């Protein structure tokens, strides 16, 4: 059945997949190499062999700004925001998927409408609200709104409906489990793959968010990493040294790679699929 043609086709598929992988990695590899080379070296030719200007580039970068401070600020925003998004979205999704209360359709309809609403639509009103509540320059407007993430709720509701069975919930009720117990102990484990996927998405969105922090924060000490990185744009002395730019991009990239190495394990396949067999 599996002839030589099959093997050749399969090899071609693998080669194409690997080439695509290389395309994804190449800019980062060039970034790492160039971070160790001097501006004049980079301008004259390209190579995959590291140079020896890492220290000079490092000094140039940190003379200009403290990237570690930016990383820490981003952690302080992105971690709580992600936890809030995942937990409360799962809770809302579960409520919408499993209970037929009166306002259900209204809330879901509103979520659908707000998913289509560009975040930029509320930007001006949001900034206006922050001014009124004296929340400008605070992390609160970047964290608390994460509780209400319509997109995540929509995804998890679909996920809950396709993965949770009413008979499983009913069985738990007959056993005397409370509603929140059922949610925490039965629904969350089944929804976990979807939650993990959405968790990764929302962490990255929060971590990489640029426009909102740029508008809300104006104290340099509070700048999150992307806002800090963007200030490179204004600097002409650092722009003269390409190596320093590559290095600052590299430093800004490393923490999120570490986080992903840990979180990626949580995209687990098919926990939900086998949970209840009809």
């Amino acid at each position, binding site marked *: 059945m599996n002839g030589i043609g099959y093997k050749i086709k399969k090899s071609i598929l693998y080669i194409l997949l690997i080439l695509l992988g290389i395309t994804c990695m190449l800019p980062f590899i060039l970034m790492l190499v160039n971070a160790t080379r001097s501006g004049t070296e980079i301008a004259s030719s390209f190579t995959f062999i590291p140079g020896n200007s890492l220290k000079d580039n490092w000094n140039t970068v940190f003379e200009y700004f403290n990237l570690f401070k930016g990383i820490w600020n981003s952690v302080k925003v992105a971690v709580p925001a992600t936890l809030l998004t995942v937990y409360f979205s799962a809770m809302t999704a579960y409520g919408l998927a499993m209970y037929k209360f009166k306002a259900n359709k209204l809330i879901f309809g509103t979520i659908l409408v707000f998913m289509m609403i560009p975040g930029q639509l509320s930007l001006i009103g949001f900034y206006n609200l922050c001014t009124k509540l004296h929340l400008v320059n605070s992390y609160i407007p970047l964290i608390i709104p994460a509780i209400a993430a319509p997109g995540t709720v929509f995804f998890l509701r679909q996920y809950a409906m396709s993965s949770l069975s009413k008979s499983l919930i009913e069985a738990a009720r007959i056993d005397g489990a409370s509603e929140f117990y059922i949610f925490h102990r039965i629904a969350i484990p089944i929804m976990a793959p979807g939650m993990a996927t959405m968790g990764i998405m929302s962490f990255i969105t929060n971590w990489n968010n640029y426009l909102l922090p740029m508008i809300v924060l104006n104290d340099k000490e509070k700048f999150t990493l992307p806002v800090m990185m963007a200030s490179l744009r204004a600097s002409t002395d650092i722009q003269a040294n390409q190596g320093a730019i590559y290095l600052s991009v590299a430093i800004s*990239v490393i923490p999120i790679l570490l986080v992903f190495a840990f979180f990626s394990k949580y995209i687990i396949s098919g926990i939900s699929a086998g949970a209840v067999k009809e």
Partner: protein
Amino acid sequence: MKTKKKGMKKYDNMGYWFVLPFVVVFCIFSVYPVLRTLYISFTDMRIFEPDTAWVWLDNYKRVLTDKFFWRALGNTIRIWGVNIVLQLGLAFLLMMVFSDMKYKIKGLAVFRIVYYLPNLIAATSIAFLFLTLLDWRYGTFNQIINAICNFIGISYNPINWLGTEQFAGVSISVIQTWMWFGNSFIMLMAGVQGISKDYFEAAAIDGAGRWTIFRKITLPLIKPILTYVAITSLIGGLQMFDLPYLMAKKADASYNSVQTVVMYMYKFGFETGTTQTSYASAVAYVLFAIICIVSIVQFKVMNGKED
């Protein structure tokens, strides 16, 4: 069955507790700002100030007759359009490859991480990475092309990827695709993996071919996720800001060809010197109306057959 259903009823109102935190935060931080923006769009507010006059639809009239707005919209759609075709096409192909019953491609875990890699990185970092790589005089990208051209013996005139109208939009589209195809792929794959293995096994036992299995089982069951991916990409795409904002220099000839709607809005919403809060608010609402119409059409088209 009937008694069972009645038994469920008493639990139904418990649903309110589950959605309560969401609803409260949602009203304060989403609904209010959106309505507030709407209110401002009907006034003549310049910078946030209390005393403003009601001007009805003046701002909207100005948006709809401003040729720079339409140009920004055209730019946004062009950049997004090129990107979505490449991005969804690639993600869909990859999903077909990795869920194929016959070839049983291994290493999904590793490939998934590699393909997703570009999406991890903040657009600000990506912007500076590619600004530097694509620099037409000193950038590594042109050096590589030059090396390849030298190798095959043709001469290469360095292309100014971001500085010329001809290439700037396409360059940004391709960078967007590079950033987002892995994300779409993971979402589609999560959908495929959510399908019970039993279906595939049963179908295989019944002698269904892989194309039939794909069409009759995989495709209908991942449709909600496919719809979700397509619609979110559209909404995200029409709001494109970070990349073009950071990569296009105002001095460049290409700037006018990559200024997106949100960049246009930002100019009036927050940039010093050009701030006109009410006009920016109207721009936001016109963008919303456009997104609404397009996503309703998209939703209907993709879900039409089922209902």
